[in-house]
């Protein structure tokens, strides 16, 4: 008699499912599982794409990169060792079709490219792709679909690239070394390496990246790699497959982790709904369990029955929730289809494990404690209904819940420090919102005096169910707040930032201007009525030592600092401090200082690299070491769109080094033809359209925001679950109240209006909280992060409050409808 039999448990579960007792618990759990697995499946697919393409990311086994021409002796040596060799060159450039222009990543490839992986091409933009073993023939170009779309031209059109004209013969769909993560901003134009001289784009100091690719047998490649490591020149970077993939993996992992944390908010709210539903389930089953004990069921039987039921629920929800998550991830992949430029492989089954872990964790942390109470129901309750199990120990409940959340968090991010930070952040946010929600509920009290009976009844209900009301306000407020932030405040910030820029802020950058053509360019500007412009010298160099310690012996904190050191740096020199720069410490040089090597460093750059006043930095400038002492730190207003630099040297240090000139200029729409003429006359000059660049950045931001919004839709669904759980928890109470009110003469309409008033008021409060939260966060972002004067958007309040009232009002009334419409006689008879 005391052994739990699985068939009995399953039958009881089926009965509970049929009677709807478990509906809210199941739905809430479903939302949690679906939200985490949707993100899980998606990031798994991106991760798999990265892994699958790890062998291809270099398009070779070994890749030697440099900003300067690479000695052809390497090629001969490699061929001698039986390796395959191919050369490529890439640089940012602008292509023209008539007067339309677009920024491109120009990639010139030589015979044999790619040595690993295959190119894919298509006959029309966004058309079906097929692999190919060829490369563009001389005089031809293969263009990215995005480029053709941007210029509005078909395959077969001719594009001007520098001084050369090329015909687009294919659409480039995929190249192995494009990176499998989130793509860069510019569209690719692939041309034959043999066409590069005719474009006249390559000049001393141009921003060109060159690479030699090698592939062959593993042992040959390894031996050659060792030799290259020993003999490569400064500025030459050697990449093997094992170096390349972790970086890409890290960036896609970071994006995935962010989305997972976003979906964790829905999981937490769902967990709250699960706890509420489990409490109600336990309360409704006290009598049944007492009866079963009366008939001889042992405590162990009740415990096993409870646990087995939870396991069955977990299995059921894992299957259904994971299926929903799988469908939802397809939506996420579709939203981000432009950003992920490779075919995503199908996700693995491991994510289904995530679904199971989620449901078990939530059930153990949030549903088990109230259900465990059932075990302790005294059997004598069958005779005296006032006998209750010993009260829940809240400390134990919280330990379970917090433990479950931390476990889930750790499972998602696998980084104890991040777990601490995120847990503190989430905890703090919830507490702040709960405190605000509690204040709002309290603030309703005085309003009850001045309103009609329906509203008084509704507002009284909110106050009476204080704790549940706060939970609902927080649940909805949080979901709405994030959506408002992403949908409205983000736009407002961008608009405020644009408004903060002067009308005549430069909208074009021009780089790669040869110093000997500086005067001619200035003259061209004057002739064509463009504003006079400063041509600023730019010298490319590599940081080799700080305080005479070689940089490869220094450990830098963070990827960004490491990146600063590995990349070639842009240096300049200036006699005077620019208007958009401000000294924060040290002194600027005076005329008498000429010749003594000094350098002024941008503050944030100095912080990243750990540089301070008095330190010396050594750069390799065209093979010559140049050492300078840091004499000042500067703050730079980057959004002046003037040519600004992290490192500004004093005059007399870099003056004789051959570099290029750079400038930025404001061009009115009517003056654009002048730019076409400029490029025709000075083909090596690269023009960067800032408007186009900004709109591309914005496009990426929009898509990313859309994806995050999509994930936060689950948060609203979770909020809905909290509401349903709260309505369900008060169902018996509401049914009885409504019957009493109607017995006392209230019409069904009045009772209905009371319920509508209650939920509309709850929605108003959620919306108010959401709008206030979004405004505060927006204000903080504007002031502290973007240095802007933030002008609050009244629409945030209108949409927040009206949207909240409608959403919660309608959902609440729908959920509580059946309770109100039941005939009072039936209710009162049942209550006897």
């Amino acid at each position: 008699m005391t052994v739990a039999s699985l068939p009995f448990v399953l039958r009881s579960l089926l009965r509970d499912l049929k009677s709807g007792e478990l509906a809210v618990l199941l739905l809430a759990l479903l939302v949690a599982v679906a939200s985490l697995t949707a993100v899980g499946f998606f990031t798994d697919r991106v991760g798999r794409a990265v892994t699958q393409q790890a062998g291809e990311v270099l398009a070779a086994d070994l890749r030697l990169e440099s900003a300067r021409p690479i000695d052809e002796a390497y090629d001969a040596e490699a061929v001698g060792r039986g390796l395959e060799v191919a050369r490529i060159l890439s640089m940012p450039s602008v292509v023209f079709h008539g007067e339309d222009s677009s920024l491109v990543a120009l990639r010139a490839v030589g015979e044999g490219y790619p040595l690993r992986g295959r190119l894919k091409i298509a006959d029309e933009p966004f058309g079906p792709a097929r692999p190919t073993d060829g490369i563009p023939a001389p005089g031809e170009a293969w263009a990215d679909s995005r480029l053709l779309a941007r210029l509005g031209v078909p395959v077969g059109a001719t594009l001007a690239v520098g001084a050369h004209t090329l015909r687009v013969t294919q659409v480039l769909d995929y190249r192995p070394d494009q990176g499998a993560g989130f793509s860069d901003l510019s569209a690719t134009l692939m041309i034959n390496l043999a066409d590069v001289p005719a474009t006249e784009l390559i000049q001393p100091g141009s921003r060109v990246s060159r690479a030699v690719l090698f592939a062959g047998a593993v042992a040959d490649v390894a031996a050659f790699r060792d030799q290259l490591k020993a003999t490569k020149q400064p500025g030459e970077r050697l990449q093997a497959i094992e170096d390349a993939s972790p970086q890409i993996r890290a960036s896609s992992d970071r994006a995935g982790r962010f989305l997972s944390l976003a979906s964790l908010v829905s999981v937490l709210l769902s967990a709250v709904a699960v706890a509420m539903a489990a409490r109600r389930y336990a309360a409704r089953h006290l009598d049944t369990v007492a009866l079963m004990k009366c008939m001889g069921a042992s405590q162990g039987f009740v415990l096993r029955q409870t646990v087995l039921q939870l396991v069955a629920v977990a299995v059921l929800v894992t299957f259904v929730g994971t299926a929903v998550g799988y469908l939802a991830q397809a939506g996420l992949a579709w939203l981000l289809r432009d950003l992920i430029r490779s075919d995503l492989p199908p996700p693995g089954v491991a994510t289904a494990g995530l679904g199971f872990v989620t449901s078990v964790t939530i059930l153990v942390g949030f549903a088990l404690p109230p259900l465990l109470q059932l075990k302790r129901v005294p059997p004598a309750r069958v005779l005296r209904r006032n006998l209750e199990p010993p009260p829940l120990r809240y400390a134990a409940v919280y330990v379970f819940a917090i433990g479950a959340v931390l476990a889930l968090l750790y499972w998602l991010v696998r980084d104890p420090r991040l777990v601490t930070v995120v847990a503190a952040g989430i905890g703090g946010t919830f507490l702040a919102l709960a405190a605000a929600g509690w204040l709002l509920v309290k603030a309703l009290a005085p309003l009850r005096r001045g309103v009609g009976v329906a509203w008084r009844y509704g507002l009284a209900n909110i106050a009476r169910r204080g704790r549940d009301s706060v939970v609902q306000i927080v649940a909805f407020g949080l979901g709405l707040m994030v959506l408002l932030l992403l949908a409205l405040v983000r736009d407002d910030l961008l608009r405020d930032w644009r408004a903060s820029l002067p009308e005549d802020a430069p909208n074009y950058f021009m780089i790669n201007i040869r110093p000997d053509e500086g005067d001619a360019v200035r003259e061209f500007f004057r002739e064509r009525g463009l504003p006079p412009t400063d041509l600023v010298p730019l010298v490319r160099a590599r940081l080799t030592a700080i305080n005479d310690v070689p940089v490869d012996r220094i450990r830098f904190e963070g990827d960004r600092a490491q990146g600063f050191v590995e990349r070639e740096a842009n240096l300049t020199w200036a006699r005077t401090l620019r208007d958009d720069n401000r000294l924060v410490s040290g002194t600027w040089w005076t005329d008498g200082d000429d010749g003594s090597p000094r350098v002024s460093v941008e503050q944030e750059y100095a912080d990243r690299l750990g540089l301070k006043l008095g330190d010396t930095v050594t750069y390799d400038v065209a093979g010559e070491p140049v050492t300078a002492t840091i004499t000042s730190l500067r703050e730079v207003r980057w959004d002046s769109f003037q040519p600004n630099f992290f490192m500004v040297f004093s005059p007399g240090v870099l003056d004789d080094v051959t570099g290029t000139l750079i400038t930025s200029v404001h061009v009115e729409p009517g003056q654009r033809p002048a730019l076409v003429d400029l490029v025709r006359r000075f083909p090596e000059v690269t023009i960067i359209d800032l408007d186009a660049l900004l709109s591309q950045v914005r496009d990426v931001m929009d898509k990313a925001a859309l994806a995050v919004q999509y994930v936060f839709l689950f948060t609203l669904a979770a909020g809905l679950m909290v509401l349903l759980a709260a309505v369900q928890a008060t169902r018996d109470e509401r049914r009885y109240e409504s019957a009493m009110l109607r017995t006392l003469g209230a019409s069904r309409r009045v009772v209905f209006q009371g319920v509508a008033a209650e939920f509309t008021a709850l929605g108003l409060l959620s919306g108010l909280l959401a709008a206030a939260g979004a405004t505060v966060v927006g204000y903080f972002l504007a002031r502290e992060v973007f240095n802007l004067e933030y002008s609050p958007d009244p629409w945030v309040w209108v949409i927040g409050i009206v949207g909240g009232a409608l959403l919660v009002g309608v959902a609440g009334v729908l959920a509580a409808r059946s309770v109100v419409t039941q005939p009072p006689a039936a209710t009162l008879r049942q209550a006897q």
Partner: protein
Amino acid sequence: MGKQVSSPEGTLAILSDVSIGIARGETVAVMGASGAGKSTLLALLAGLDEPTSGTVCLAGSDLTTLDEDGRAAVRARHVGFVFQSFHLVPSLTALENVMLPLELARRRDARGAALEVLGRVGLAGRVGHYPRQLSGGEQQRVAIARAFVTRPDVLFADEPTGNLDAVTGERIMELLFGLNAETGATLVLVTHDQALAARCGRVIRLDAGRVVGS
């Protein structure tokens, strides 16, 4: 045996020095005013509660030496219950309610046995109905079927007609005594109803927690 509980006003004696013996097959009524301790006595006799002093023996087992699970096992083997407020599980049909004790005992053919007893109490046509779809009398008949389906040695009934009108109550008692006579079970019946008590072989009267007549 005795039963005391602590309350804000101090210790409260609900039952004091109660000593009774009930033989196999006997029918006993427990009577007394409200608060006399009738329900507490029933709970102690059935092992639903523990006395604070003394011992309770049921079907040869000393309940006071057993823990809650041990007492549950004794109930499972020997005891059936009928309550004033029926105590049917609202989410189960009449048939499922009657099957419940058999399922808990993992008895085969729970369904067949339950259908048979439901037929005996005249509810063969309503086996698929939920408690809310049944009248009070019908609900109590389901409860009686549930009590007898395990063929218990002892049947405890707590004011089984308390929630029913006189005519229905009379029919229910006919059914209860009829089935009891058939099975030869010991019947312990808590009631206010003199007429009902008169049908039992013996009446135990309680007043303020003490036995004042037997």
